[in-house]
């Protein structure tokens, strides 16, 4: 069902984890559909993404798209990171099954959400960046589950 690249990034995800005191964090998706992605960015004074980490709740494709997206933006300028589209994510993975293409959109949105957070924290405006639609706020109420 998945390409070798997808399986590789799923079984050995790159840049998985958290960044303490990040320059920006974005969380997108929703638990109802079964996909949530969180991106952490560490951006230096020159606007270069020095480090990036992700956490994902979701299927194999969701994990793989997050992983490859971190590779695609790491070391890039904010401007160049903005140019990483979901299409680039799909291509870098040698393709995704049609039903999983939405995962690549989520990866693109996760980067945008983290950049949006970075811009807000710095009080700057990034040209061409819009607030991602599926951004999730931390305080969002969750259904409580009793085991």
């Amino acid at each position, binding site marked *: 069902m*998945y390409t070798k690249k997808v*399986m590789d990034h*799923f*079984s050995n*995800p790159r840049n*998985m984890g*958290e960044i303490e005191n990040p320059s920006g964090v974005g*969380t997108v998706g929703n*638990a*109802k*559909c*079964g*996909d*949530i*992605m*969180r991106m952490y960015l560490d951006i230096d004074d020159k606007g270069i993404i020095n480090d990036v980490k992700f*956490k*994902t*709740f*979701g*299927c*194999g*494709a*969701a*994990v793989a798209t997050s992983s490859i997206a971190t590779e695609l933006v790491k070391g890039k300028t904010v401007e160049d990171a903005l140019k990483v589209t979901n299409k680039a994510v799909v291509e870098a993975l040698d393709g995704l099954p049609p*039903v999983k293409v939405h995962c690549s959109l989520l990866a693109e949105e996760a980067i945008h959400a983290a950049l949006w957070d970075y811009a807000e924290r710095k009080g700057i405006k990034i040209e061409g960046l819009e607030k991602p639609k599926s951004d999730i706020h*931390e305080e969002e109420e969750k*259904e409580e*589950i009793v*085991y």
Partner: protein
Amino acid sequence: MEKKIYLDNAATTKTKPEVVDAMLPYFSELYGNPSSVYEFATQNKKALDEARLTIANALGTESAEIYFTGGGTEADNWALIATAEAYQDKGKHIITSKIEHHAVLHTCEYLQKRGFEISYIDVDEYGIVKLDQLEKAIRPTTILISIMFANNEIGTIQPIKEIGEIAKRNKILFHTDAVQAFGQLDIDVDDLGIDMLSASAHKLNGPKGIGCLYIRKGIKIRSFIHGGAQERGRRAGTENVPFAVGFGKAVELAMTTMKERTKKETELREYLIKRVLAEVPYTRLNGHRSKRLPNNANFSFQFIEGESLLIMLDMNNICASSGSACTSGSLDPSHVLLSIGLPHEIAHGSLRLTLSEANTIEELDYTVDKIKEIVDKLRKMSPLYEDFVRRR
């Protein structure tokens, strides 16, 4: 482990070698058409009759009430659609449950589009149909109650006898999808008040592509496939003799081994459930603790998603299934898990393990060890778990 560990027996089972052996002569040697008059073909008629009798005996009924179909799904379609057509003069209302297999649910949707009204009865947190709600749903126009014998995902066994009594008291036909139950649980259609029952061969070590519908004598259900006089004119088309023979053989084996086999499966299941619940935190067992199929275990692991878990289990040669949206091909997780009240994110993290008598404690130990490793790995990757830990 080098060897594959198959824990998806609710999806399908291994066709037993004895079953294959019984089928083989009916391909290239005894290939006659059972409807032909010559001696060569009458052997096929005899083989078909024997298989039918074996299945009838297993259900506590007679041969004349067993109709071979192309599988469980066809049997469900037939039972619902043909009953609806035959009894629409009495009324156009059908009662079913929210946790039926799609073979029933999607057929109900089909009927709904054609003017029938369907009541979908709720289940409790264990997946047991609410009988009071079922009784209240009955109208003068109700023609059929269709409730599955045991659920394919969470294994919950329904109070079939009580439902049979309710149906009888109200003079309504009662159909049950027994695809998962047949061969695992005792079924006597008269004792349980069942009027129609669907079964499938490949769930009990028979071949895929054959099943049957039991139709109680006197029910005016019409033919579903039109053509020749096969299956008493109700299901036309040359009979699939080798598969029917295989089905018969599988039922014969399942019946003779049932007591011993299900005892072993139950022991394995209990071992598995106890280990998983004790050793994997934030985990729940879905379905009823005791009123469940002997071979079914269904868990939800909080903070993780089922497809990821399945792929990682597969990398370790373990075959299992999940009710997550990603494995169902839709955006929503399993309708069964949602019906028992699970929130979406918990339903996404479900894992179904369905055993066979061939499984061993060693295999289950290996599986639980791997589940622990994988769940731990996926939780470390999960933003939901991160939030949970932070909030704690």
